[in-house]
């Protein structure tokens, strides 16, 4: 699972929806040096992702991630990242996976276990995230054409100890569309309280779905130059 700092997490399904919201909300959360991606001037992108991991250093578990899409930092001589994320709130279904992600990757977590139910339909999948029966997020994404890919992303993290980035490579079957057939309901709940005033669109302008793949985290890098706003 782990070799020279590379850590792999195998999943059955990983889905994501991209939702627009005002950039002033994004800037309030982002470290100063990170630039939000704006599909339209003044609109940033909330990425909501859910994973169904069946094999990892901490066993099987589910994960819900709220991120802001940011501009990747392209390094001369290095492979190009496809895009970049700033995860600002994650939740997992097990305590062990949560503690692992905080310690290893400095990912900011909601500190309670959640339940993640996957409803797989014909050409679509819906996740229902709850905490002790209280709904958090319901999200549906739809499929398009499938292809086998290996995509390279950047993730940026910060906590009291510092600022970090990691390259994440996602390999597996991949479907992506901007057909606007999916949707999201974000419930009033402690994990999502930040989003309450965000004027968030409820139809994803982009829907991602990956199947039977592996997520590989590259060794964490500490970034000295980032300063919290």
């Amino acid at each position, binding site marked *: 699972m782990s070799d020279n700092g590379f850590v792999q997490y195998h999943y059955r399904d990983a889905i994501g929806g991209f939702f627009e919201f005002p950039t002033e909300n994004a800037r309030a959360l982002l470290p100063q040096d990170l*630039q939000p991606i704006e599909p*339209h*001037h*003044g*609109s940033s992108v909330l990425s909501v992702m859910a994973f169904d991991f069946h094999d990892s250093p901490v066993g099987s578990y589910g994960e819900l991630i709220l991120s802001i899409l940011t*501009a*990747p*930092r*392209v*390094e*001369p*001589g*290095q*492979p*190009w*990242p*496809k*895009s970049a994320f700033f995860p600002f709130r994650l939740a997992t279904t097990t305590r062990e996976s949560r503690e692992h992600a905080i310690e290893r990757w400095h990912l900011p977590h909601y500190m309670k276990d959640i339940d993640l139910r996957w409803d797989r339909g014909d*050409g679509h999948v819906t996740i229902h995230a709850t905490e002790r029966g209280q709904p958090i997020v319901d999200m549906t994404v739809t*499929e*398009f*054409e*499938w*292809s*086998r*890919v*290996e*995509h390279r992303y950047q993730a940026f993290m910060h906590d009291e100890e510092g600022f970090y980035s990691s390259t994440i490579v996602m*390999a597996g*079957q991949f479907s*992506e*569309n*901007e*057909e606007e057939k999916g949707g999201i309901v974000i419930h009033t709940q402690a994990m999502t309280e930040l989003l309450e005033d965000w*004027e968030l669109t409820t139809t994803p*302008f*982009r829907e991602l779905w990956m199947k039977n793949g592996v997520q590989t985290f590259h060794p964490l890098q500490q970034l000295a130059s980032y300063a919290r706003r």
Partner: protein
Amino acid sequence: MATRVEAPASSNVLDYDYSSFFYSSSDDPFAILEPYNEWYNRAVPQGYYLFAQPMATPPAARISLEEQLHCRTVPLLNLSSYNYLGLSYRPEVIEAAKRALDRYGLGAAGSPILSGTMDIHVELEEAIARFKGKEAAMVFPTGYSTNVGMISGLMRPGDWIIADQNSHASIVDGAILSKANVRFFRHNNVADLEKKLRQTSGKKLVAIEGIYSMDGDVCPLPDIVEVCKRYGARILLDEAHSCFVYGPNGRGVAEHYGLDEEIDIHVGTFSKALGGQGGYVAGSRNLYNYLKGFARSRVFSCSLSPVVAAGVLESLSIAQREPELRDSLWTNVAHIRKRLDEEGVDVGDSTSQIFPVMIRNDRRVFEIGHKLLRAGLYLQPIIYPAVAKHRSRFRVSVSASHTFEQLDEGVSILARVLREEGIIL
């Protein structure tokens, strides 16, 4: 949709685009150049050569194109140019430009507010104002600078600009430059426009377009006007692709709907149907006078070349005295629409002289474009970020100067290639 798994494509350069190369990790602004060029030099042979290939002829129905991949000049049937009325190469237009060249020389040699206004500019502004039925019209050196100067010249920090999400970059950039608050409503969705208007207070400008150039669809103007009036929002209507084409007198979509008087700011270009260059704002004399001082993209640019101004003036005159040009255009549009429909080509929601030929595959659009070139048809691929991911397409622009035979030939080539590629059955 059926599941289809393709071969691994881990480092396909066409997974990336211009938007992937905004920032580098270095403090040196030049650090981004190396990775960008590494990508670009790999992307060009795989398809990006289809952009910005030089034309060696007028933008007529038959052209010569300098194909960059194979370094050769190829004769092509052209369904890509905006020359909707075929005016850019009309002999009268060329003669008018030549006369202006003899009289004024090449350029205006000054800003329009200093020494760069010539009598031909005044004549053009007055002709546009008369044509649009407005008190005044202001000429800008390009269509892009028209929206940028218009919007940033009028709107201020704290104001609200509500624009269609498919707005042209000039509207977006004008809004950014104004430092006003900006919201985008879902394309042609009046309910979402109303939602955005309801959420705002203060001065409001709604910016829309007559025809949207990527989809060829027309804005639902009557409903938009009704909502804007209800919320006290001013309306800017950009008729870049619809003026001189739509309406009983060719004044545009506003005239087509009988809503000319309900639009506060009429914007248009000379580079599409009139086959020239430049843009205009038409409206009240008060608006004109104000923009004269505040439209910085005009104030700080050299005036439109008097040669172009004279050519545009003649194009405008022809467009007015030969309404049969518009009839020819719409006859051609009906003809090609029928032919495309017979061949089963997906043209999205187009109702205008612009037809998106939907490919919906961001990688294959380039190889199909190359095949079209080899077959003798010039169509431009349109990909993300100009359009949404996986809504890649070719854009067909019809002109009054096309013949039925040329349109049939174009559709035949297109249908054959799309059929060979499995895009249509």
